[in-house]
Protein backbone atom coordinates (compact mmCIF):
# COMPACT_ATOMS: atom_id res chain seq x y z
CA UNK A 1 0.00 0.00 0.00
CA UNK A 2 2.75 2.43 0.90
CA UNK A 3 4.36 1.64 -2.43
CA UNK A 4 1.17 2.72 -4.13
CA UNK A 5 1.16 6.10 -2.40
CA UNK A 6 4.77 6.60 -3.17
CA UNK A 7 4.05 6.04 -6.84
CA UNK A 8 1.11 8.38 -6.78
CA UNK A 9 3.19 11.09 -5.17
CA UNK A 10 5.88 10.59 -7.74
CA UNK A 11 3.32 10.97 -10.45
CA UNK A 12 1.90 14.18 -9.09
CA UNK A 13 4.86 16.04 -7.87
CA UNK A 14 8.21 14.54 -7.15
CA UNK A 15 9.55 13.20 -10.45
CA UNK A 16 10.89 9.73 -10.67
CA UNK A 17 11.38 7.45 -7.70
CA UNK A 18 14.88 6.52 -6.62
CA UNK A 19 16.08 3.65 -8.77
CA UNK A 20 12.86 3.49 -10.69
CA UNK A 21 13.19 2.83 -14.38
CA UNK A 22 11.11 5.15 -16.54
CA UNK A 23 11.19 5.78 -20.25
CA UNK A 24 11.95 9.26 -21.53
CA UNK A 25 8.44 9.67 -22.98
CA UNK A 26 6.87 8.60 -19.70
CA UNK A 27 9.00 11.07 -17.78
CA UNK A 28 8.02 13.91 -20.11
CA UNK A 29 4.35 13.00 -19.72
CA UNK A 30 4.65 13.14 -15.94
CA UNK A 31 6.30 16.50 -16.17
CA UNK A 32 3.53 17.72 -18.44
CA UNK A 33 0.93 16.45 -15.95
CA UNK A 34 2.50 18.52 -13.20
CA UNK A 35 1.84 21.72 -15.17
CA UNK A 36 -1.75 22.41 -14.11
CA UNK A 37 -2.44 25.18 -16.58
CA UNK A 38 -1.31 23.03 -19.47
CA UNK A 39 -3.38 20.04 -18.34
CA UNK A 40 -6.43 22.25 -17.85
CA UNK A 41 -5.96 23.76 -21.32
CA UNK A 42 -5.59 20.33 -22.83
CA UNK A 43 -8.83 19.23 -21.18
CA UNK A 44 -10.59 22.33 -22.50
CA UNK A 45 -9.34 21.65 -26.02
CA UNK A 46 -10.33 18.00 -25.89
CA UNK A 47 -13.73 18.98 -24.56
CA UNK A 48 -14.32 21.50 -27.35
CA UNK A 49 -13.14 18.96 -29.90
CA UNK A 50 -15.43 16.23 -28.54
CA UNK A 51 -18.45 18.54 -28.39
CA UNK A 52 -17.83 19.73 -31.94
CA UNK A 53 -17.39 16.18 -33.14
CA UNK A 54 -20.63 15.05 -31.50
CA UNK A 55 -22.55 18.13 -32.71
CA UNK A 56 -25.56 16.33 -34.24
CA UNK A 57 -26.12 14.44 -30.99
CA UNK A 58 -25.98 17.54 -28.84
CA UNK A 59 -28.17 20.08 -30.55
CA UNK A 60 -31.69 19.48 -31.84
CA UNK A 61 -31.52 22.36 -34.35
CA UNK A 62 -30.10 22.48 -37.84
CA UNK A 63 -27.23 24.88 -38.46
CA UNK A 64 -28.54 25.90 -41.87
CA UNK A 65 -32.32 26.03 -41.71
CA UNK A 66 -33.61 29.55 -42.16
CA UNK A 67 -36.66 30.76 -40.25
CA UNK A 68 -36.98 34.51 -40.49
CA UNK A 69 -39.75 34.59 -37.90
CA UNK A 70 -37.12 33.72 -35.29
CA UNK A 71 -34.47 36.20 -36.48
CA UNK A 72 -32.30 38.08 -33.95
CA UNK A 73 -33.80 36.62 -30.82
CA UNK A 74 -31.92 37.19 -27.60
CA UNK A 75 -30.92 34.17 -25.50
CA UNK A 76 -33.88 32.21 -24.20
CA UNK A 77 -34.46 28.70 -22.80
CA UNK A 78 -35.12 27.35 -26.32
CA UNK A 79 -32.16 29.11 -27.92
CA UNK A 80 -29.56 29.38 -25.21
CA UNK A 81 -27.39 31.75 -27.22
CA UNK A 82 -30.13 33.32 -29.21
CA UNK A 83 -30.49 33.31 -32.98
CA UNK A 84 -28.80 35.09 -35.87
CA UNK A 85 -30.25 37.31 -38.54
CA UNK A 86 -31.78 34.32 -40.39
CA UNK A 87 -33.25 32.75 -37.30
CA UNK A 88 -30.66 29.98 -36.95
CA UNK A 89 -29.74 28.79 -33.46
CA UNK A 90 -26.45 30.42 -32.43
CA UNK A 91 -25.31 27.61 -30.15
CA UNK A 92 -25.77 25.09 -32.95
CA UNK A 93 -23.81 27.26 -35.32
CA UNK A 94 -21.14 27.80 -32.71
CA UNK A 95 -20.69 24.07 -32.21
CA UNK A 96 -20.66 23.31 -35.93
CA UNK A 97 -18.40 26.31 -36.49
CA UNK A 98 -15.94 24.90 -33.95
CA UNK A 99 -15.59 21.85 -36.13
CA UNK A 100 -14.69 23.93 -39.13
CA UNK A 101 -12.49 26.49 -37.43
CA UNK A 102 -10.48 24.04 -35.34
CA UNK A 103 -9.98 21.52 -38.14
CA UNK A 104 -9.00 24.28 -40.47
CA UNK A 105 -6.57 25.99 -38.14
CA UNK A 106 -4.95 22.70 -37.13
CA UNK A 107 -4.66 21.46 -40.69
CA UNK A 108 -3.25 24.75 -41.94
CA UNK A 109 -0.79 24.79 -39.03
CA UNK A 110 0.34 21.24 -39.77
CA UNK A 111 0.80 22.05 -43.43
CA UNK A 112 2.85 25.16 -42.63
CA UNK A 113 4.83 23.22 -40.09
CA UNK A 114 5.68 20.41 -42.48
CA UNK A 115 6.69 22.71 -45.34
CA UNK A 116 8.48 25.19 -43.09
CA UNK A 117 10.39 22.68 -40.99
CA UNK A 118 11.46 20.50 -43.91
CA UNK A 119 12.66 23.42 -46.03
CA UNK A 120 14.19 25.18 -43.02
CA UNK A 121 16.13 22.05 -42.07
CA UNK A 122 17.41 21.54 -45.59
CA UNK A 123 18.46 25.17 -45.89
CA UNK A 124 20.04 25.39 -42.46
CA UNK A 125 21.81 22.05 -42.39
CA UNK A 126 23.10 21.73 -45.93
CA UNK A 127 23.83 25.39 -46.59
CA UNK A 128 25.50 26.56 -49.82
CA UNK A 129 23.26 26.53 -52.92
CA UNK A 130 20.43 24.61 -51.21
CA UNK A 131 20.24 27.38 -48.64
CA UNK A 132 20.44 30.12 -51.25
CA UNK A 133 17.70 28.53 -53.34
CA UNK A 134 15.29 27.95 -50.46
CA UNK A 135 15.86 31.38 -48.99
CA UNK A 136 15.17 33.08 -52.32
CA UNK A 137 12.02 30.99 -52.55
CA UNK A 138 10.86 32.19 -49.13
CA UNK A 139 11.71 35.75 -50.12
CA UNK A 140 9.48 35.38 -53.15
CA UNK A 141 6.67 34.02 -51.01
CA UNK A 142 7.09 36.76 -48.43
CA UNK A 143 7.01 39.45 -51.08
CA UNK A 144 3.45 38.70 -52.07
CA UNK A 145 0.88 40.45 -49.92
CA UNK A 146 -0.96 37.58 -48.23
CA UNK A 147 -4.54 38.68 -48.83
CA UNK A 148 -4.09 39.59 -52.47
CA UNK A 149 -2.47 36.22 -53.19
CA UNK A 150 -5.03 34.37 -51.11
CA UNK A 151 -7.95 36.11 -52.77
CA UNK A 152 -6.55 35.42 -56.25
CA UNK A 153 -5.91 31.76 -55.45
CA UNK A 154 -9.31 31.34 -53.86
CA UNK A 155 -10.91 32.89 -56.91
CA UNK A 156 -9.06 30.51 -59.23
CA UNK A 157 -9.64 27.31 -57.28
CA UNK A 158 -13.02 26.76 -55.77
CA UNK A 159 -13.48 28.42 -52.37
CA UNK A 160 -14.05 25.89 -49.64
CA UNK A 161 -12.62 24.40 -46.50
CA UNK A 162 -10.01 22.18 -48.13
CA UNK A 163 -8.77 24.81 -50.52
CA UNK A 164 -8.65 27.38 -47.76
CA UNK A 165 -6.37 25.13 -45.75
CA UNK A 166 -4.10 24.64 -48.74
CA UNK A 167 -4.00 28.36 -49.52
CA UNK A 168 -3.21 29.42 -45.96
CA UNK A 169 -0.67 26.62 -45.57
CA UNK A 170 1.16 27.34 -48.79
CA UNK A 171 1.27 31.08 -48.22
CA UNK A 172 2.35 31.25 -44.60
CA UNK A 173 5.09 28.64 -44.10
CA UNK A 174 7.83 31.22 -44.63
CA UNK A 175 7.96 32.42 -41.02
CA UNK A 176 8.50 28.95 -39.61
CA UNK A 177 11.02 28.15 -42.33
CA UNK A 178 13.14 31.17 -41.49
CA UNK A 179 12.97 30.51 -37.76
CA UNK A 180 14.03 26.90 -38.25
CA UNK A 181 16.86 27.85 -40.56
CA UNK A 182 18.19 30.54 -38.24
CA UNK A 183 18.04 28.22 -35.24
CA UNK A 184 19.87 25.46 -37.10
CA UNK A 185 22.58 27.82 -38.28
CA UNK A 186 23.53 28.62 -34.71
CA UNK A 187 22.92 25.10 -33.39
CA UNK A 188 25.05 23.53 -36.11
CA UNK A 189 28.19 25.04 -34.60
CA UNK A 190 27.77 22.98 -31.44
CA UNK A 191 30.33 20.28 -30.81
CA UNK A 192 27.68 17.64 -30.33
CA UNK A 193 26.63 17.96 -33.95
CA UNK A 194 30.26 17.45 -34.92
CA UNK A 195 30.37 14.52 -32.50
CA UNK A 196 27.32 12.96 -34.14
CA UNK A 197 28.95 13.35 -37.52
CA UNK A 198 32.13 11.76 -36.24
CA UNK A 199 30.05 8.82 -35.02
CA UNK A 200 28.96 8.31 -38.61
CA UNK A 201 25.32 9.24 -38.02
CA UNK A 202 23.46 9.99 -41.24
CA UNK A 203 22.35 13.59 -41.91
CA UNK A 204 18.66 12.63 -41.63
CA UNK A 205 19.20 11.13 -38.21
CA UNK A 206 21.30 14.09 -37.08
CA UNK A 207 18.49 16.44 -37.99
CA UNK A 208 15.86 14.24 -36.38
CA UNK A 209 17.63 13.32 -33.17
CA UNK A 210 20.08 16.11 -32.53
CA UNK A 211 18.73 19.21 -34.18
CA UNK A 212 14.94 19.12 -34.11
CA UNK A 213 14.58 18.32 -30.39
CA UNK A 214 16.86 21.23 -29.58
CA UNK A 215 14.89 23.77 -31.60
CA UNK A 216 11.53 22.48 -30.42
CA UNK A 217 10.64 25.54 -28.38
CA UNK A 218 10.76 28.14 -31.16
CA UNK A 219 8.94 25.71 -33.45
CA UNK A 220 6.19 25.13 -30.90
CA UNK A 221 5.79 28.82 -30.27
CA UNK A 222 5.59 29.53 -33.99
CA UNK A 223 3.09 26.68 -34.42
CA UNK A 224 0.76 27.88 -31.68
CA UNK A 225 0.90 31.39 -33.04
CA UNK A 226 0.12 30.12 -36.51
CA UNK A 227 -3.04 28.41 -35.21
CA UNK A 228 -4.25 31.76 -33.97
CA UNK A 229 -3.24 33.27 -37.29
CA UNK A 230 -5.06 30.48 -39.12
CA UNK A 231 -8.33 31.13 -37.32
CA UNK A 232 -7.98 34.81 -38.10
CA UNK A 233 -7.17 34.24 -41.77
CA UNK A 234 -10.12 31.91 -42.02
CA UNK A 235 -12.33 34.60 -40.53
CA UNK A 236 -11.15 37.25 -42.98
CA UNK A 237 -11.37 34.96 -45.97
CA UNK A 238 -14.86 33.92 -44.94
CA UNK A 239 -15.75 37.56 -44.57
CA UNK A 240 -14.73 38.08 -48.21
CA UNK A 241 -16.91 35.12 -49.05
CA UNK A 242 -13.85 33.22 -50.26
CA UNK A 243 -13.56 30.87 -47.34
CA UNK A 244 -16.22 28.92 -45.58
CA UNK A 245 -19.44 29.85 -47.30
CA UNK A 246 -22.77 30.25 -45.65
CA UNK A 247 -24.86 28.35 -44.71
CA UNK A 248 -21.83 26.38 -43.51
CA UNK A 249 -20.76 28.04 -40.26
CA UNK A 250 -17.38 28.86 -38.82
CA UNK A 251 -16.35 31.13 -35.97
CA UNK A 252 -14.87 33.46 -38.51
CA UNK A 253 -17.93 33.90 -40.65
CA UNK A 254 -20.16 34.13 -37.59
CA UNK A 255 -18.04 37.06 -36.44
CA UNK A 256 -18.09 38.69 -39.82
CA UNK A 257 -21.87 38.23 -40.06
CA UNK A 258 -22.19 40.26 -36.88
CA UNK A 259 -20.23 43.23 -38.10
CA UNK A 260 -23.16 45.58 -38.50
CA UNK A 261 -23.50 48.46 -36.05
CA UNK A 262 -26.82 47.16 -34.86
CA UNK A 263 -25.39 43.77 -34.01
CA UNK A 264 -22.40 45.23 -32.24
CA UNK A 265 -24.47 47.60 -30.15
CA UNK A 266 -27.55 45.64 -29.27
CA UNK A 267 -27.08 41.96 -30.24
CA UNK A 268 -24.06 40.90 -28.17
CA UNK A 269 -24.99 37.20 -28.39
CA UNK A 270 -24.09 37.21 -32.05
CA UNK A 271 -20.45 38.18 -31.67
CA UNK A 272 -19.36 37.54 -28.08
CA UNK A 273 -19.59 33.71 -28.14
CA UNK A 274 -17.57 33.10 -31.34
CA UNK A 275 -15.00 35.72 -30.30
CA UNK A 276 -14.73 34.15 -26.88
CA UNK A 277 -14.29 30.70 -28.39
CA UNK A 278 -11.42 31.91 -30.57
CA UNK A 279 -9.74 33.47 -27.53
CA UNK A 280 -10.23 30.34 -25.43
CA UNK A 281 -8.91 28.00 -28.12
CA UNK A 282 -5.90 30.16 -28.98
CA UNK A 283 -5.00 30.63 -25.32
CA UNK A 284 -5.39 26.93 -24.57
CA UNK A 285 -3.21 25.99 -27.50
CA UNK A 286 -0.59 28.44 -26.31
CA UNK A 287 -0.58 26.98 -22.81
CA UNK A 288 -0.45 23.42 -24.10
CA UNK A 289 2.42 24.39 -26.37
CA UNK A 290 4.30 25.93 -23.47
CA UNK A 291 3.66 22.92 -21.25
CA UNK A 292 4.87 20.64 -24.01
CA UNK A 293 8.01 22.68 -24.46
CA UNK A 294 8.87 22.56 -20.78
CA UNK A 295 8.05 18.87 -20.51
CA UNK A 296 10.29 17.98 -23.42
CA UNK A 297 13.27 19.96 -22.19
CA UNK A 298 15.27 17.84 -19.76
CA UNK A 299 17.07 20.90 -18.41
CA UNK A 300 13.88 22.37 -17.01
CA UNK A 301 12.60 20.62 -13.93
CA UNK A 302 9.57 21.64 -11.98
Amino acid at each position, binding site marked *: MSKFWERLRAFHGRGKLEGEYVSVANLSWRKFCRNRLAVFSLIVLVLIAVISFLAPLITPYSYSEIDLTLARQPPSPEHILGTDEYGRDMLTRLIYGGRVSMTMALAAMLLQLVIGVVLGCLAGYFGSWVDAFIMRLTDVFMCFPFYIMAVCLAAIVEPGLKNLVLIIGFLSWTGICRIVRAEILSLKENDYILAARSLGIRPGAIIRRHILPNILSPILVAATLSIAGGIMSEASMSFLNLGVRTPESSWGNMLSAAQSMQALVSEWWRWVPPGLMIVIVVLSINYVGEGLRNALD*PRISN
Partner: protein
Amino acid sequence: MAAEPTLLEISHVKKYFPRKKPTFRQSQEWLKAVDDVSLTIPRFYSVGLVGESGCGKSTLGRTILRLHAPTGGRVVFEGQPLFDMEGKQWLPEARMRDLRKDMQMIFQDPYGSLNPRLTVGQAVEEGVARHHVVPAADRRAYCEEILENCGLEKKFYMAYPHEFSGGQRQRIVIARALALKPKFVVCDEPTAALDVSIQSQILNLMMDLREELNLTYLFISHNLRVTQAFCDEIVVMYLGKIIEQGPAEEVCSHPVHPYTQALINSLPVSNPWETKPKAQILGSIPSAVHIPSGCRFHPRCPYATPRCQEDEPAWKDIGGGHCAACHLI
Protein backbone atom coordinates in the same frame (compact mmCIF):
# COMPACT_ATOMS: atom_id res chain seq x y z
CA MET B 1 57.43 -1.69 -31.99
CA ALA B 2 58.83 -0.18 -35.15
CA ALA B 3 57.84 -3.29 -37.07
CA GLU B 4 54.15 -2.53 -36.62
CA PRO B 5 52.44 -1.71 -39.91
CA THR B 6 51.20 1.77 -40.64
CA LEU B 7 47.64 2.51 -39.56
CA LEU B 8 47.32 6.06 -40.74
CA GLU B 9 49.37 7.92 -43.26
CA ILE B 10 49.03 11.66 -43.51
CA SER B 11 50.86 13.35 -46.33
CA HIS B 12 51.07 17.04 -47.14
CA VAL B 13 47.73 17.79 -45.50
CA LYS B 14 46.67 21.41 -45.73
CA LYS B 15 43.69 23.18 -44.32
CA TYR B 16 43.17 26.83 -45.20
CA PHE B 17 40.20 28.81 -44.00
CA PRO B 18 39.07 31.64 -46.28
CA ARG B 19 39.13 35.06 -44.69
CA LYS B 20 36.41 37.54 -45.31
CA LYS B 21 37.30 39.34 -48.48
CA PRO B 22 37.69 43.08 -47.97
CA THR B 23 35.64 45.21 -50.33
CA PHE B 24 37.57 46.50 -53.36
CA ARG B 25 40.40 44.05 -52.89
CA GLN B 26 40.73 41.25 -55.34
CA SER B 27 42.99 38.77 -53.62
CA GLN B 28 41.45 36.28 -51.24
CA GLU B 29 43.27 35.96 -47.93
CA TRP B 30 43.68 32.56 -46.34
CA LEU B 31 44.22 31.50 -42.77
CA LYS B 32 46.65 28.64 -43.07
CA ALA B 33 45.69 26.61 -40.03
CA VAL B 34 47.46 23.47 -41.20
CA ASP B 35 50.14 23.96 -43.80
CA ASP B 36 51.66 20.86 -45.35
CA VAL B 37 51.80 18.32 -42.54
CA SER B 38 53.01 14.79 -43.08
CA LEU B 39 52.91 12.15 -40.39
CA THR B 40 52.79 8.39 -40.20
CA ILE B 41 51.08 6.71 -37.30
CA PRO B 42 51.96 3.04 -36.75
CA ARG B 43 49.39 0.66 -35.31
CA PHE B 44 49.14 0.50 -31.49
CA TYR B 45 51.17 3.68 -31.16
CA SER B 46 50.29 6.78 -29.24
CA VAL B 47 51.40 9.89 -30.99
CA GLY B 48 51.30 13.13 -29.05
CA LEU B 49 50.70 16.34 -30.93
CA VAL B 50 51.81 19.38 -28.94
CA GLY B 51 51.97 23.07 -29.61
CA GLU B 52 50.57 26.28 -28.22
CA SER B 53 46.99 27.41 -28.73
CA GLY B 54 46.15 28.30 -32.28
CA CYS B 55 48.92 26.31 -33.94
CA GLY B 56 46.51 24.07 -35.82
CA LYS B 57 46.57 20.91 -33.69
CA SER B 58 42.82 20.52 -33.40
CA THR B 59 42.30 21.51 -37.01
CA LEU B 60 44.73 18.79 -38.07
CA GLY B 61 42.92 16.22 -35.94
CA ARG B 62 39.57 17.18 -37.39
CA THR B 63 40.84 17.39 -40.93
CA ILE B 64 42.26 13.89 -40.97
CA LEU B 65 38.89 12.59 -39.76
CA ARG B 66 37.28 14.65 -42.53
CA LEU B 67 35.26 16.68 -40.09
CA HIS B 68 36.70 19.71 -41.88
CA ALA B 69 36.94 19.72 -45.65
CA PRO B 70 40.68 19.54 -46.42
CA THR B 71 42.36 22.03 -48.72
CA GLY B 72 45.09 19.71 -49.91
CA GLY B 73 47.01 16.53 -49.20
CA ARG B 74 46.22 12.91 -48.73
CA VAL B 75 45.18 10.70 -45.82
CA VAL B 76 45.30 6.93 -46.05
CA PHE B 77 43.74 4.80 -43.33
CA GLU B 78 44.57 1.09 -43.43
CA GLY B 79 45.42 1.31 -47.12
CA GLN B 80 42.14 3.07 -47.86
CA PRO B 81 42.53 6.69 -49.04
CA LEU B 82 40.08 8.96 -47.23
CA PHE B 83 40.95 11.80 -49.53
CA ASP B 84 43.63 12.74 -51.98
CA MET B 85 43.10 16.28 -53.08
CA GLU B 86 45.89 16.26 -55.66
CA GLY B 87 44.83 12.91 -57.13
CA LYS B 88 41.18 14.01 -56.99
CA GLN B 89 40.23 11.01 -54.92
CA TRP B 90 37.46 11.33 -52.40
CA LEU B 91 35.96 8.49 -50.43
CA PRO B 92 32.17 8.75 -50.90
CA GLU B 93 30.35 10.21 -47.93
CA ALA B 94 28.36 7.02 -47.27
CA ARG B 95 31.51 4.86 -47.20
CA MET B 96 33.17 7.43 -44.98
CA ARG B 97 30.31 7.23 -42.50
CA ASP B 98 30.69 3.47 -42.31
CA LEU B 99 34.42 3.84 -41.85
CA ARG B 100 33.93 6.19 -38.90
CA LYS B 101 33.34 3.15 -36.74
CA ASP B 102 37.11 2.62 -36.82
CA MET B 103 38.19 6.22 -36.37
CA GLN B 104 36.76 8.07 -33.43
CA MET B 105 37.29 11.38 -31.75
CA ILE B 106 37.24 12.37 -28.10
CA PHE B 107 36.27 15.99 -27.91
CA GLN B 108 37.88 18.72 -25.90
CA ASP B 109 34.82 20.35 -24.40
CA PRO B 110 32.72 17.93 -22.35
CA TYR B 111 30.02 20.57 -21.97
CA GLY B 112 29.47 21.25 -25.64
CA SER B 113 29.96 17.81 -27.11
CA LEU B 114 26.98 16.08 -25.49
CA ASN B 115 23.48 16.69 -26.79
CA PRO B 116 21.47 18.04 -23.83
CA ARG B 117 18.35 16.21 -25.04
CA LEU B 118 19.80 12.71 -25.01
CA THR B 119 20.30 10.58 -21.94
CA VAL B 120 23.69 9.06 -21.34
CA GLY B 121 22.37 5.73 -22.52
CA GLN B 122 20.95 7.16 -25.71
CA ALA B 123 24.16 9.02 -26.46
CA VAL B 124 26.30 5.91 -26.11
CA GLU B 125 23.83 3.59 -27.81
CA GLU B 126 23.44 5.78 -30.87
CA GLY B 127 26.76 4.95 -32.50
CA VAL B 128 26.60 1.33 -31.37
CA ALA B 129 23.24 0.96 -33.07
CA ARG B 130 24.41 2.79 -36.19
CA HIS B 131 27.35 0.46 -36.74
CA HIS B 132 25.79 -2.74 -35.37
CA VAL B 133 28.68 -3.25 -32.99
CA VAL B 134 26.66 -5.77 -30.99
CA PRO B 135 23.27 -7.42 -31.69
CA ALA B 136 20.35 -5.18 -30.79
CA ALA B 137 19.33 -7.39 -27.89
CA ASP B 138 22.71 -7.01 -26.16
CA ARG B 139 23.10 -3.33 -26.89
CA ARG B 140 21.99 -2.00 -23.58
CA ALA B 141 24.05 -4.44 -21.54
CA TYR B 142 27.06 -3.69 -23.71
CA CYS B 143 26.74 0.07 -23.30
CA GLU B 144 26.27 -0.26 -19.56
CA GLU B 145 29.44 -2.28 -19.42
CA ILE B 146 31.39 0.30 -21.43
CA LEU B 147 30.13 3.07 -19.17
CA GLU B 148 31.09 1.05 -16.13
CA ASN B 149 34.56 0.55 -17.57
CA CYS B 150 34.76 4.29 -17.95
CA GLY B 151 33.79 4.72 -14.31
CA LEU B 152 30.10 5.54 -14.54
CA GLU B 153 27.62 3.47 -12.58
CA LYS B 154 24.64 1.78 -14.14
CA LYS B 155 22.18 4.03 -12.33
CA PHE B 156 23.30 7.00 -14.43
CA TYR B 157 22.12 5.37 -17.62
CA MET B 158 18.89 7.34 -17.81
CA ALA B 159 20.34 10.64 -16.63
CA TYR B 160 20.84 13.69 -18.80
CA PRO B 161 24.21 15.40 -19.36
CA HIS B 162 23.33 18.46 -17.30
CA GLU B 163 23.14 16.27 -14.20
CA PHE B 164 26.85 15.48 -14.38
CA SER B 165 30.11 17.20 -13.51
CA GLY B 166 32.73 17.97 -16.12
CA GLY B 167 34.81 14.90 -15.29
CA GLN B 168 31.82 12.60 -15.52
CA ARG B 169 30.80 14.12 -18.81
CA GLN B 170 34.26 13.56 -20.17
CA ARG B 171 33.88 9.90 -19.24
CA ILE B 172 30.64 9.78 -21.18
CA VAL B 173 32.37 11.35 -24.18
CA ILE B 174 35.14 8.75 -23.92
CA ALA B 175 32.64 5.91 -23.53
CA ARG B 176 30.69 7.11 -26.53
CA ALA B 177 33.79 7.08 -28.72
CA LEU B 178 35.18 3.79 -27.45
CA ALA B 179 31.88 1.91 -27.55
CA LEU B 180 32.34 1.57 -31.30
CA LYS B 181 35.52 -0.46 -30.74
CA PRO B 182 37.53 1.90 -32.91
CA LYS B 183 41.05 1.25 -34.08
CA PHE B 184 42.16 4.85 -34.11
CA VAL B 185 41.14 7.61 -31.73
CA VAL B 186 41.91 11.30 -32.01
CA CYS B 187 41.93 12.75 -28.50
CA ASP B 188 41.50 16.49 -28.80
CA GLU B 189 42.80 17.80 -25.48
CA PRO B 190 40.55 15.44 -23.53
CA THR B 191 41.76 16.77 -20.20
CA ALA B 192 42.03 20.47 -20.95
CA ALA B 193 38.71 21.35 -19.35
CA LEU B 194 39.28 19.30 -16.21
CA ASP B 195 41.07 19.94 -12.96
CA VAL B 196 44.31 18.17 -12.22
CA SER B 197 42.99 15.37 -10.01
CA ILE B 198 40.38 14.41 -12.57
CA GLN B 199 42.93 14.75 -15.36
CA SER B 200 45.05 11.95 -14.03
CA GLN B 201 42.00 9.72 -13.56
CA ILE B 202 40.92 10.28 -17.14
CA LEU B 203 44.44 9.72 -18.45
CA ASN B 204 44.81 6.49 -16.50
CA LEU B 205 41.46 5.38 -17.80
CA MET B 206 42.51 6.12 -21.35
CA MET B 207 45.76 4.22 -20.86
CA ASP B 208 43.95 1.19 -19.47
CA LEU B 209 41.50 1.22 -22.32
CA ARG B 210 44.32 1.48 -24.77
CA GLU B 211 45.80 -1.78 -23.51
CA GLU B 212 42.42 -3.44 -23.38
CA LEU B 213 41.16 -2.46 -26.81
CA ASN B 214 44.47 -2.21 -28.71
CA LEU B 215 43.91 1.41 -29.59
CA THR B 216 46.03 3.79 -31.56
CA TYR B 217 45.87 7.34 -30.26
CA LEU B 218 46.60 10.69 -31.74
CA PHE B 219 46.79 12.66 -28.54
CA ILE B 220 46.44 16.40 -29.02
CA SER B 221 47.56 18.48 -26.09
CA HIS B 222 49.31 21.66 -25.11
CA ASN B 223 50.62 19.99 -22.00
CA LEU B 224 54.02 18.54 -22.79
CA ARG B 225 54.37 16.70 -19.51
CA VAL B 226 51.09 14.84 -19.95
CA THR B 227 52.06 13.97 -23.48
CA GLN B 228 55.46 12.71 -22.38
CA ALA B 229 53.85 10.31 -19.93
CA PHE B 230 51.13 9.22 -22.27
CA CYS B 231 52.71 8.86 -25.68
CA ASP B 232 55.34 6.84 -27.51
CA GLU B 233 56.10 9.59 -29.90
CA ILE B 234 55.87 13.37 -29.76
CA VAL B 235 55.20 15.70 -32.65
CA VAL B 236 55.65 19.43 -32.06
CA MET B 237 53.66 21.81 -34.21
CA TYR B 238 54.20 25.50 -34.71
CA LEU B 239 51.97 27.71 -36.83
CA GLY B 240 50.53 24.91 -38.92
CA LYS B 241 53.75 22.98 -39.48
CA ILE B 242 55.59 20.18 -37.74
CA ILE B 243 58.93 21.43 -36.45
CA GLU B 244 60.16 18.51 -34.41
CA GLN B 245 59.26 14.88 -34.09
CA GLY B 246 60.71 11.89 -32.29
CA PRO B 247 60.37 9.31 -29.52
CA ALA B 248 58.74 10.91 -26.47
CA GLU B 249 61.66 10.49 -24.05
CA GLU B 250 64.17 11.61 -26.63
CA VAL B 251 62.30 14.77 -27.57
CA CYS B 252 61.74 15.72 -23.95
CA SER B 253 65.29 15.04 -22.78
CA HIS B 254 67.15 16.33 -25.84
CA PRO B 255 64.99 18.83 -27.67
CA VAL B 256 66.83 20.27 -30.64
CA HIS B 257 64.48 22.88 -32.01
CA PRO B 258 64.64 26.17 -30.09
CA TYR B 259 60.85 26.19 -29.85
CA THR B 260 60.70 22.74 -28.28
CA GLN B 261 63.50 23.71 -25.92
CA ALA B 262 61.55 26.74 -24.83
CA LEU B 263 58.40 24.66 -24.35
CA ILE B 264 60.28 22.24 -22.13
CA ASN B 265 61.99 25.00 -20.20
CA SER B 266 58.68 26.62 -19.50
CA LEU B 267 57.32 23.52 -17.74
CA PRO B 268 56.97 24.14 -14.02
CA VAL B 269 59.32 22.05 -11.89
CA SER B 270 58.30 20.20 -8.78
CA ASN B 271 61.29 21.37 -6.74
CA PRO B 272 60.99 25.08 -5.90
CA TRP B 273 64.75 25.45 -5.28
CA GLU B 274 65.71 24.05 -8.61
CA THR B 275 66.73 26.79 -10.97
CA LYS B 276 66.56 26.46 -14.68
CA PRO B 277 66.88 28.75 -17.66
CA LYS B 278 63.86 30.90 -18.33
CA ALA B 279 61.91 30.30 -21.48
CA GLN B 280 63.25 32.55 -24.16
CA ILE B 281 60.39 32.95 -26.55
CA LEU B 282 59.36 36.50 -27.21
CA GLY B 283 55.89 37.70 -28.02
CA SER B 284 53.04 35.50 -29.04
CA ILE B 285 52.22 33.29 -31.97
CA PRO B 286 51.93 35.34 -35.20
CA SER B 287 48.76 35.36 -37.24
CA ALA B 288 48.32 32.35 -39.49
CA VAL B 289 47.18 34.72 -42.22
CA HIS B 290 50.54 36.48 -42.52
CA ILE B 291 53.06 33.73 -41.97
CA PRO B 292 56.67 34.94 -41.52
CA SER B 293 59.06 34.22 -44.36
CA GLY B 294 61.76 31.59 -44.10
CA CYS B 295 61.61 29.71 -40.84
CA ARG B 296 58.22 30.61 -39.43
CA PHE B 297 59.65 30.70 -35.92
CA HIS B 298 62.37 33.25 -36.65
CA PRO B 299 60.64 36.39 -35.25
CA ARG B 300 60.49 34.78 -31.82
CA CYS B 301 63.66 32.69 -31.94
CA PRO B 302 66.53 33.81 -29.69
CA TYR B 303 69.09 32.23 -32.07
CA ALA B 304 67.70 33.56 -35.33
CA THR B 305 70.23 34.33 -38.06
CA PRO B 306 69.70 36.29 -41.29
CA ARG B 307 69.41 32.98 -43.09
CA CYS B 308 66.39 32.03 -41.01
CA GLN B 309 64.49 34.95 -42.48
CA GLU B 310 64.98 33.77 -46.02
CA ASP B 311 65.21 29.99 -46.30
CA GLU B 312 62.67 27.61 -44.96
CA PRO B 313 64.63 24.99 -43.00
CA ALA B 314 64.66 21.45 -44.36
CA TRP B 315 63.57 18.39 -42.41
CA LYS B 316 66.67 16.83 -40.83
CA ASP B 317 67.01 13.40 -39.29
CA ILE B 318 69.30 13.42 -36.28
CA GLY B 319 69.18 9.70 -35.62
CA GLY B 320 66.85 7.35 -33.77
CA GLY B 321 63.77 8.65 -35.54
CA HIS B 322 64.30 12.10 -34.07
CA CYS B 323 63.82 14.79 -36.71
CA ALA B 324 63.55 18.55 -36.68
CA ALA B 325 63.34 21.49 -39.03
CA CYS B 326 65.94 24.10 -38.04
CA HIS B 327 68.99 25.61 -39.71
CA LEU B 328 71.02 25.47 -36.52
CA ILE B 329 71.16 21.69 -36.13
